[in-house]
Structure formats: structure tokens, C-alpha cells
């Protein structure tokens, strides 16, 4: 049975904050295929298109028929622990600091043998449920867990390194003026967060009521001074930052007023993101190994339109695409500290600015639940709602066709 996690004690200010180190992160090109699956929470391995052989470790040719066609395919998560070891002495600093570390050899129902991280409640001879997680270095890692839920299962210390569970963590949600921000704040507190700060821009203006457990803080992301001030106050304590800001104004290139609105959207989204990253990112990256409530994740709520420019939101889509691009840069930089960057792509939400759109739309609660789930399961790319899922499938099937259909002109 997993020992339940204890609330972290107040930090001793005289103690040195451990510098984040990472597990080995060299991977082959084919190995990165699994990272793709892990990012979305899929359990997929390479499966030969010609003979159906499921291949692992990742390969460039099928060992059964030498076919070069080995795409990812979702496979059964079932397997059995056929051997195990508890590593007391590791060659790498990351695991030395975290010893003992349990690993197992798992015989998958679909054939391959996987060396995997082993949950504390699973042992040799047990049936397990496999998943591909992202380790703190951002690479796919096989994890074997009990098939059935066990008490405090999510508190397993090896599992906790693979995810960004909000439990006992201190979280900044950037925009309490929009319904999504308020819903996210509540959902994170319900998920066991110790503290949630909720940013309110220009807080002298009235704003809707928020959950009484929330700490409201002044934050105007397009104002770098405001970001600096808040980071100065709480930056050393933020374990998770959820950037929920959404400022959408319709407008294609030829529309009147489009330049002014585009500038405002750039300020609030792109520069806002940059300000936040600049003022909070460094502190978080330095605290990636700071005990139970280490800095662990940065979440961006992005629009589905970041994936495909869509009429009549031409400039907004472009700004969202810029933010998506920036998130990849941030992900690369935060990885050195073992801090995850998760992008949650949402279709249009039930909000005054999407009022005229036909369904399906996404409720703020759905975005909030998706964020909690992504943090608990360690996903990196999350798609919320049917609209964005449809968009993604079409993008994969025919990107040019999607472009024509989404930008049929106004």
C-alpha cells in the first residue's frame, strides 16, 4: 500500500535549494515517436504495417520482416511483471538522489518486453496496466501500475515524478476575470492544491465573486511591472502556473480597426505570456527539485485556432499560433529545471465573445477538469471538446483542405 503523502513542512530558509538534475535524456529518432504518444497520454508502440509485429525498443526496421514501415499504433495496456529490481545505487545523480528506485520487466500482452518504472503497489507476478509517461527530462517513460486502484495510488513517489499532481502545490492562475480562470482555480483547490492565487487585472474595477479559498492577487499580464511586482511577492513559491488569459476580438486582415485590436491581442496574449515567462519562469526552473512542492508545471490554455487560422478570427488565430510557438521555446527552456509545459487546446468556450457561434462549445468547467487531469496524468498536449478534436483530425487528414475550409473569406 502506498504511504500517503504528507503535507510539506515549511521550508528551512538556511537549507540549500537542490539544483534540478535530469535523468538520462539521449533518445534515438525512433525513440521520440514514443514521446509523441506519451505527450497525449496514449499507450502506443511501433507496429509493423506489413506483418503486424509490435516492436520495442524503438527501431528503424521490423525484426520480423525488415519492413521500414513502423508507425505508432495504440496497443493494449495489459502486461505482467516477469522480474523486478530495486536499485539502491545508481550511476546517475538524478536517481542517486531518489534511491531506492524500483523497476520491472513487463511482458506485454501484445508481445514485447518493456523495462518500466514500477509502482510501489506492483510486484513480480502481478498483472499491470502500462502507460507511457513523460519523465522530467521530457522523454517517454514506460510506467507499470496496478490494474485496479489502490489506496493513495497517486502518492507513489516514483509516479509523482512523472506527473504534476496539484496535491499540496501552490498555484497561480493568471486571469480571474474570465470564467475559465475562476473554474480552474476552484478545480485545483478541489484537487488538493495548498494555495491558489488568482490574478485580477485592474483590481479596482469590479469583478465577479470567486471561491472564498482563493487568494486574489493583482496581475495585469500585458504590464511587465505588474508581473514583476507579483513575482517579487510570490514568485519563489509558485509550483504551477496556469496561464488562462483569453482576450478574443473577431477580425480578419481587411476589417476596420483590426490593427488596434491585433495590437491589444498581441499585448495580452503574446507579450503577456512573455512577461509571465520572464518574471516567473526563471524562479520556477530553479525550483524543479525543491521537495514535495517543487515547481512542476506551466500550463497554457490556448485556443484551437492556434492550430488552424480561422475566419473571422484571423488576427486572433495568428496571435494564438504565436503563443503556441512560444510555448515550445518555453518548454525547451523549462526542461532544464524539470518543469513541464502543458498546452491545453480548447475549442470556443461558452463566453460572451463567442456568443454568435453555433455549438459545440466548451464550458469553463470542462477546461478546468482537463487541466486537472493533464496535471495528474502528466500529459503535455491536451485537446478539450469536440471542436478541437475534429480540427485536429482534419489537420492530420488534409491540412490544405482544412486551410481552405477554415479561411473561406468574409
Amino acid at each position, binding site marked *: 500500500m502506498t504511504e500517503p503523502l504528507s503535507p510539506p513542512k515549511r521550508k528551512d530558509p538556511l537549507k540549500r535549494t537542490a539544483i534540478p538534475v535530469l535523468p538520462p535524456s539521449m533518445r534515438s529518432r525512433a525513440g521520440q515517436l514514443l514521446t509523441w504518444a506519451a505527450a497525449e497520454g496514449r499507450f502506443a508502440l511501433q507496429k509493423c504495417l506489413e506483418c503486424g509485429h509490435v516492436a520495442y*525498443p524503438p527501431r528503424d526496421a521490423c525484426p520480423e520482416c525488415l519492413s521500414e514501415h513502423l508507425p505508432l499504433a495504440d496497443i493494449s495496456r495489459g502486461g505482467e511483471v516477469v522480474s523486478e529490481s530495486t536499485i539502491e545505487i545508481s550511476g546517475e545523480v538524478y536517481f542517486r538522489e531518489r534511491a531506492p528506485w524500483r523497476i520491472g520487466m513487463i511482458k506485454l500482452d501484445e508481445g514485447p*518486453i518493456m523495462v518500466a*518504472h514500477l509502482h510501489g503497489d506492483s510486484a513480480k507476478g502481478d498483472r499491470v496496466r502500462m502507460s507511457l509517461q513523460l519523465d522530467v527530462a521530457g522523454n517517454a517513460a514506460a510506467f507499470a501500475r496496478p490494474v485496479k486502484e489502490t489506496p493513495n495510488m497517486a502518492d507513489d513517489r516514483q509516479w509523482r515524478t512523472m506527473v504534476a499532481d496539484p496535491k499540496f502545490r501552490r498555484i497561480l492562475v493568471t486571469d480571474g476575470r474570465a470564467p475559465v480562470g475562476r473554474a480552474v482555480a476552484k478545480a485545483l483547490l478541489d484537487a488538493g492544491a495548498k494555495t491558489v492565487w488568482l490574478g485580477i487585472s485592474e483590481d479596482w474595477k469590479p469583478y465577479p465573486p470567486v471561491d472564498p479559498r482563493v487568494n486574489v492577487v493583482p496581475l495585469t499580464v500585458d504590464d511587465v511591472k505588474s508581473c514583476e511586482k507579483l513575482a517579487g511577492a510570490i514568485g519563489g513559491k509558485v509550483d504551477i502556473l496556469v496561464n488562462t488569459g483569453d482576450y478574443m476580438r473577431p477580425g480578419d486582415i481587411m476589417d476596420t480597426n483590426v490593427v488596434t485590436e491585433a495590437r491589444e491581442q498581441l499585448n495580452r496574449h503574446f507579450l503577456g505570456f512573455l512577461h509571465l515567462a520572464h518574471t516567473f519562469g526563471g524562479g520556477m526552473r530553479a525550483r524543479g527539485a525543491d521537495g514535495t512542492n517543487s515547481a512542476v508545471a506551466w500550463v497554457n490554455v490556448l485556443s484551437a485556432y492556434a492550430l488552424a487560422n480561422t475566419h473571422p478570427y484571423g488576427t486572433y488565430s495568428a496571435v494564438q499560433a504565436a503563443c503556441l510557438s512560444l510555448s515550445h521555446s518555453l518548454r525547451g527552456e523549462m526542461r532544464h529545471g524539470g518543469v513541464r509545459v502543458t498546452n491545453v487546446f480548447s475549442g470556443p468556450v461558452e463566453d460572451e465573445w463567442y456568443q454568435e457561434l453555433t455549438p459545440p462549445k466548451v464550458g469553463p468547467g470542462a477546461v478546468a477538469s482537463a487541466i486537472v487531469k493533464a496535471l495528474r496524468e502528466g500529459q503535455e498536449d491536451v485537446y478539450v471538446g469536440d471542436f478541437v478534436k475534429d480540427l485536429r483530425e482534419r489537420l492530420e487528414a488534409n491540412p490544405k483542405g482544412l486551410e481552405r475550409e477554415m479561411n473561406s473569406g468574409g
Partner: protein
Amino acid sequence: MAGGRKQRASYDGVVLTCPVTVPYSRYSIHAAHWWIGKALRALADSSGLSHRQFDGFCLSSFTAGTDSAIGIAQHMGLNLRTVDTIPLGGNSGVAAIRRAARFVQAGDADIVACVAADTNQIDTFRQTTANFSRFAQDAVLPYGSGGANSSFAMIQRNYMDRYGVTREDLGRIAVSQRANALKNPNALMKKPLTLDEYVNARAIASPVHLFDCVMPCAGAEAFLVMREDLAEELGLTPVFLKGAIERHNAIDDTVQEHGGWVVDIDELYETAGTTPQGIDVVQTYDDYPVIVMMQLEDLGFCKKGEGAAFVRSHDLTIGGDFPHNTSGGQLSAGQAGAAGGYIGLTESMRQVTGTAGPTQVAGAKTALASGFGMINYERGLASGAVILSGEGA
């Protein structure tokens, strides 16, 4: 196999000679090249030849960096007709013998210097582990980075459960090798080891504990391969190659319980014209005692699953009824990288020519030595064995 397999040709007319060991050190400030140079010099001194007369070169080293055997050839001033880099870890020695023997038989080289050498600087071992293979980088190393210890731990866990092997059984192997090592002045381990100490040692990657692990070190092992008539002309003591097998990536156990030897072992004894009972001294590849036990079974000294009973009922020390790893092996003499794949070969050559000195088994004339290596992912892929004979003392 299509068309059937051709009868394996004998190694008649080829001999091994001049086994040399460059004494090991736990750490070295020198490059691998320094150790290779020492080995070549020792071969020259031992044979009375100039190294410029060596026209074949088989080299195994994990730590020579960007240099393969050809780069080393220029570095050392070797003028070669045949050059061969053998990156087969613990099976490098057996592979070198087989290749060198065929080079000589075919006339592609007259005198082949077979060398395995590695340095061990601070952090060398970690780097070798971290860069071992693509499968290891993708699918093993990120899982706790236990290196070979945790991979073999999982093999050992299964083996113990499957065949009722206890840690005491495996301890008998380690303890007897330590006793042997105390007679080998070059062994790094100088203190006796009791079974209690073995059993109570701290866990490294359970069920692998401290004395299941080899001590990484710097060192070199080498020998020459040439025609029998040339050895005679040069006045060098010959060791005859009675048989040799290799088998790679041949075993599909879920968790490894066999090595590739099982495929060819009958043929090995048949070509050598002997049986397990005809072997006077055995040198197995001992990266972990469990792999030794696997070899005792797979090499035909007992049946699968009887390894534990075998070590309980035999004395594996130099003076015992089953003299095994007489130099102390890697477990007690040290593992000098790829030289770990040679240590049993040079010791066997000394044993069958009566030149093993303090570790000499009385009357030994026939030896079996095996190699094992390359745990590329979850099992050791390379395996091989040779039977050597000499005139004895």
C-alpha cells in the same frame, strides 16, 4: 538452413601463445592507448619479436574513444595485413581467437596480436554505461540508471525464483573466486571473503548485492595467434585451439535463463574430442555469479536447474575438484573493461602450459573458457567458448 551447414573446419596448425596481463589498477590517469601500448610491449617482450613483425591485430576497447584498431595501428607503429576491431564486450576474447585463427589459417596474417585494454579514469565507467547502446539509451538507462547491475538483477531475480537458487548458492561462487584471487598477486581484491560477508553485504540493485558485482578497473590482457610451425621456430610454448563456438542473439527466453552456448555446446566437445569430464580447469565469464551458474549448466557441467546443487557439491577453488576462475576472475581480480573478456583466456593458456605460477592447477592440460557479453537491452546477446590444450607443466 538452406543447403545445410558446412562442416566446421578444424583449427589444426594454429596455436595461441604468449599470454600477457598488464597488472590492473583501480583507477588510471592514463588513456586506453597507454594500456594498449603496454600490452603490445609485453607481447613483444614475451615473444622476442618486434611489434613491427605483428601483421594482424584484433583490438577490443571501450575507452579508446574515436580510435578503432586502425587508428591504434598508426599510434603504435604497427604495419598490418589484417586489422580488426572487436566490440563484443565479454565475448571479445573468444571472437578474437576465432578470427585470428582463421586469418592465420588462410594466410591473411602470420602473427596476430589480440589485445583487450581499457582505462578507468574518474567517471569512465558511468560514461561507458551511459553510451553503451541505442536500445540501452532508449529503453534501459532512463529506468533508474542502475547499469548492468539492475539488468542482471532482473535476470537473477527470475533465475532464483525459477530454479530455487539462493543467495548462498551464488555466494559460493564469489567466495571461491576470492580464495583463488588471494593467490594471484595481480588481483585487486586482497582480503578474504566469507559467505556471511557475501550474504550480508549491502544491496546494489536487489537481488544483486555488493559482492555480486565486479570492480571496474584499468588493465590489459593480450596474446598472440600464429602458425604452429612458426611458434616452434621461434621457440614459443604453444596452446592448441581444440574447438571454438560463438552464438549471438539466439535466445528467446522471456527473461534470460540460457546463453547462446546451448545451441552449439555438443559440437564444441565433439570437435575438441572431449567431454565436460575431460576438462581440467574452467574459466567462465563472471560478470555476476548468476551468469557463472548459467554457464555451468549451459556448458554441460550439469543440467539446467542443477547449478545450485552443483556448486553445493563441488569445490571451485584452485585445489578443489572443479577448479574454476583460478585467477579470481573479474569478480575478484577486477574487470578491466573489454579485458574482462580475455581474463579467462590468458589464465587458461597459462594453466595448460603449466605457467600459471601461484594459481596453477596441478596437471592441468585442457581448459574451457567462455565469454558472454553485450547486454544491449534486457539480455546478454553475445556468447562463445573455447577449449584449449597444452603440454602442461
